[in-house]
């Protein structure tokens, strides 16, 4: 029994230590954050395409999907998601457009909101992907691995902002059960993962600064500095914050002169495809984790119960044998 027990503990310790690779691991919060000051954004007025959108498309064009046609519907449904004939669309998120500038009018004033993935601190898309296709990087960005993604679109369903976008006719599902499971590959902003890993800024941040210089909408940097800067501007200029506590906190914070609950209402009344809900609870933290604690606790209680019951049972059996011998 000693060997079995020792073996069990060795295996468990080995498994646990192999997954705890600290140097490459992310903490709760990533290293970087982006500040998006929408009080400064004019949607690149006078230009055909907002600079952030233009440069994002340029930066990522080699990664855009090239679906194999004809694309088959998601059996037994008759539908499928194909954006390949709408590659030029820039006023919404698509597999070919990972950032867009949303225009909304609040109290007669036009405001422009660059919209892309918020890169949450505890991202439901990453935690919920059943194929491990989404990962959260130490830099704070959530990244989709196009070669692992089945295109089930669960990440879009669990994302409070429904950011990831699906393209059918591409991806691993075509090689497994194309008719019955999977639906393509999901695409979204990954905060220019290759650039930020090298210490560079995301392309949209650079493009915005090129145009607006010190009045740029985007500021990218160490998270602690970005958060400090944002809070300072809230204190000094009476601006409003968004993204610091929504969904348990994110690596993208918006600053605005207009309260975000008013922006939420304006977007909701327009029935916009991409909303900005003000109250966003992180279900992992509020719902799953309390049950998770019960799972762990009851596991330990069960171990204790097993040890006690086994000892009692052994003693009882021993007692029985002794009685039998006496007889």
């Amino acid at each position, binding site marked *: 029994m000693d060997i079995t027990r020792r073996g069990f503990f060795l295996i468990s310790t080995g498994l646990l230590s192999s997954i705890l690779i600290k140097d490459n691991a992310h903490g709760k919060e990533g290293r970087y954050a982006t500040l998006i000051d929408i009080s400064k954004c004019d949607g690149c007025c006078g230009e055909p395409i907002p600079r952030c959108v233009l440069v994002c498309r340029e930066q990522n064009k080699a990664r855009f999907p090239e679906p194999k046609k004809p694309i088959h519907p998601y059996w037994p449904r008759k539908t499928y998601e194909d954006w390949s004939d709408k590659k030029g669309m820039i006023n919404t998120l698509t597999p070919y457009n990972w950032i867009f500038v949303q225009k909304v009018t609040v109290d007669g004033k036009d405001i422009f909101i660059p919209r892309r993935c918020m890169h949450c601190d505890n991202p439901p898309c990453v*935690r919920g992907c059943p194929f491990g296709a989404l990962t959260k990087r130490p830099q704070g960005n959530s990244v989709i691995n196009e070669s692992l993604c089945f295109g089930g679109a669960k990440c879009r369903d669990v994302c409070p902002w429904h950011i990831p976008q699906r393209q059918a006719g591409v991806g691993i599902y075509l090689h497994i059960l194309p008719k019955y499971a999977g639906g393509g590959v999901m695409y979204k902003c990954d905060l220019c993962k290759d650039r930020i890993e090298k210490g560079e800024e995301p392309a949209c941040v650079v493009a915005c600064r090129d145009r607006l210089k010190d009045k740029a909408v985007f500021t990218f940097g160490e998270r602690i500095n970005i958060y400090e800067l944002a809070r300072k501007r809230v204190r000094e200029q009476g601006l409003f914050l968004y993204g610091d506590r929504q969904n348990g906190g994110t690596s993208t914070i918006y600053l605005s002169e207009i309260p975000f609950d008013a922006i939420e209402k304006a977007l909701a009344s327009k029935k916009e495809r991409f909303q900005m809900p003000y109250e966003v609870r992180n279900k992992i933290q509020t719902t799953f984790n309390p049950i998770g604690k019960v799972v762990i606790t009851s596991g330990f209680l069960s171990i204790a119960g097993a040890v006690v019951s086994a000892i009692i049972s052994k003693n009882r059996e021993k007692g029985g044998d002794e009685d039998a011998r006496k007889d």
Partner: protein
Amino acid sequence: MPGRIKRHTSIEILEHWVLAASGIILIFTGLGCLPLFKRYYITEIPGFAWTGDFNTVTTVHYTASIFFVMAVCFHILYHGIKKEFGLLPKKGDVKNGIKVMAAMIGIGEEPPSDKYLPEQRIAYIGIGAIILLLTVTGIIKVLKNLEWVVLSPSSEALNTIIHTLSGFIFMIAFIIHVAIVIFFKSNWPLLKSMFTGWVDEDYVKHRHSIWYEKIKGKITQEELTEPKETEPCKEEENAHKDNN
């Protein structure tokens, strides 16, 4: 007069059914955690609308895992401490297991068996390994969501894939296990025992002759005749005889 022999203790019966019930819920909600139910209209079945909401499905999955983890932990520790290793495979189990399976479909004779059939021991270690893998990767997922352990991106992805794939294997193993019990009459006494704890002496004599030899000296007259009110009825006895 044929007697009855204790095969499953109340603890074993409880472990089995807690694992089975939570396992069914975990398989179902595990499938629901994949984006399948909406696509396949499961959400449109009356009473199944909740299966389209990932948060609800995950909440049920988490809740069922409490019982699954408890059963697994209890099973390993309880039987480990009691040194009850009769279900671990022995030399020659593969060969004899094939013979038992062949006999189930009417080819050849079953080799004499101990308390457990050779194919039961192989199935136990196979399904046990999958359950252990699912439990460990599932617990890692829970700990990772709690942020009590911090995983590297690739480790988190690997753990997730292992959990999903072993879930599929568990589902297949579960279906095979249930099918083998239900579709082969020779296994029915074992199913009955998984509810009552008792098997007929005749069954043990014929199918588990090695075990019978070991225990027959220890079977008390009381065990052979008790409990009277739950003795097998004539039809069951006849069915049992036909079977053997």
